């Protein structure tokens, strides 16, 4: 099977620093990929190249088997690569429908298009459809976003990308600010997305999340991809030792604190 998306040897330098060094990644339909690494490992740099925010210094991107390059995030989005950042980019003062259709509102036309009004009913109906397709329950679509919980907001942001035909979704720490129940809901939603044919790259620090949702785990360290494991054939221990560097564990002769925490949690 040809991958939906391929990054081949992407490299990005900032002055003397090589933030991402020859990183490659394949993404197949039906997969959730966990992208993990310590702070400064180069995850964000890599993702921003995929999302069109940064232009790689070296390397190539293939989407649907075609060589592509993005001069800005808009171009990546037009192809169907959507990125959901931690701030979600929702207007808190507007309702769910207005946010899903933000910037692309549905309008009624009167007098041959001379007068155009917003079709809020239609926007809410369409929003309801996409939300139910993703099994998302939000009590009232007329609610302002500010009255929704963190998980519901995350769901609205995801639903928006889906409504606009995302073919691949990148999520930056989607569970970071959520309570346990909400985390679970968002992870379920990630699986739903994936089952509906939209692969997800999920950046996370949380080993539990990554193992709960990802099929494949890609580990970055100091700008390089240091490992790639199928979640089923790996363990949090292995991933963490890849993240911090196996030799570090060896040198210190102790299990790093991060790993300790994980063992307790798992």
């Amino acid at each position: 099977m040809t991958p939906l998306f391929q990054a081949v040897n992407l490299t990005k330098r900032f002055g003397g620093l090589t933030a991402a060094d020859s990183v490659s990644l394949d993404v197949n339909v039906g997969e959730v990929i966990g992208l993990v690494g310590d702070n400064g490992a180069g995850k964000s740099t890599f993702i921003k190249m995929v999302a069109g925010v940064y232009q790689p210094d070296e390397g190539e991107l293939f989407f649907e088997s075609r060589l592509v390059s993005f001069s800005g995030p808009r171009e990546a989005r037009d192809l169907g690569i959507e990125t959901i950042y931690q701030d979600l980019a929702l207007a808190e003062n507007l309702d769910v429908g207005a946010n899903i259709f933000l910037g692309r509102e549905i309008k009624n036309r009167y007098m041959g298009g001379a007068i155009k009004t917003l079709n809020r009913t239609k926007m809410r109906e369409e929003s309801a459809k996409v939300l139910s397709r993703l099994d998302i329950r939000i009590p009232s679509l007329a609610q302002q976003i500010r009255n929704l919980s963190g998980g519901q907001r995350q769901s609205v942001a995801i639903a928006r990308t889906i409504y606009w035909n995302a073919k691949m979704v990148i999520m930056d720490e989607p569970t970071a600010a959520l309570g346990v129940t909400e985390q679970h809901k968002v992870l379920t939603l990630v699986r739903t997305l994936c089952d509906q044919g939209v692969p997800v790259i999920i950046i996370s620090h949380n080993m539990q999340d990554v193992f709960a949702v990802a099929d494949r785990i890609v580990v970055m360290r100091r700008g390089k991809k240091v490992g790639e494991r199928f979640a089923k054939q790996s363990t949090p221990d292995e991933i963490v030792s890849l993240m911090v560097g196996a030799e570090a564990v060896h040198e210190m002769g102790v299990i790093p604190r991060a790993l300790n925490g994980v063992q307790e949690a798992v």
Partner: protein
Amino acid sequence: MTVQPAEPAAVKPKRNRIENLEMVRKVWPWAFLVTLIVLFSIASQAANNVTFLSSRSIQGILLYATQVLLIGLAQTFVIIAAGIDLSSGWVLGFASVVAALVMQTLHAAGMSPVVTIGAGMLGGVLVTIVPGLINGLLIARVKVPPFIATLGMGILVEGVALLISGGYPIAKQPPYLGPLGNGSLLYFWPDHGLYFFNAPLTVTPAEAQAVIPLMPNPVFITIIVMLVCWFILAKTQFGQHLYAIGGNFEAAVRAGIPVKRTLVKVYIMSAVLAGIAGVIWTARFTSGAYNAGETTTLNAIAAVVIGGASMFGGEGTVVGTIIGALIIGTIQYGLVLLGVSPFWQYVAIGFVVILAVVMDQFGRNLGK
């Protein structure tokens, strides 16, 4: 056996606490206005044996409020987009001066009053596009904070209006201008009927007294402008984009909203509304004055705040601003009617503005 999940139908669409608080925030200005009218009715009845609520006083309040209303509408738009337009009052004066100068010149040149007045009014309104456009470009493209850009523009425009008027009121206006600015759309003459636009010809002073003017022309124009503004803000994509820009600027940009263009448009709109107010001022007082809107800007911002807008952007409605302006107009008119020193109106309006923000904060904090 499978356990059925709890029946969701049992959940009534009950109002939660947040919605209740939002109701309070929405309703209190109405309640305040009604209370104000009741209090003034009782007071004026008791003090002067005058009925406060008459067709005369209602029209008086509306006429009083037109300027604050028009500038308030302008502020509503820019404040929703997380901006402010401090140049409004001076743009108003500038428009009034330009309109008066055009009319004075054309009248002196012997042009017909219709052409003169038409050209003057159009000129006065159109000239405001210049400061509006510059405000918009400074704010949207050069990223000058709206407060500073419009403050500077206000002072600049005041100077230009002073330069072209020499600081004097511009009199010698064409005939019909005064009647246009002070006339009414309808006149009701009991036992005779309704008259459209022109007061009926009366013979005796008693007859003239009997004629009731309905709907002063400036109020009529303001109402039309209000309806247009309400439509734009509540029903169009442009209005929605203003809310989005004020609510989350970054999100608006990322959602592909033409943020810069929208901001330029909104500042032009604000200036043009000030222009309309300026032209109305010129028609009412058959003169042009650079300081015609000197006190209007801050009163208008007060009206917008009383109406529930947030100075951080993203919130506010045309209806709210109308209520806010009516509260201010009622206070001003009512105190005059009661014979209270007009200086008290500042104290009263200031109090209401602070009350409005306190109510808003109160609602928000309880909602958390």
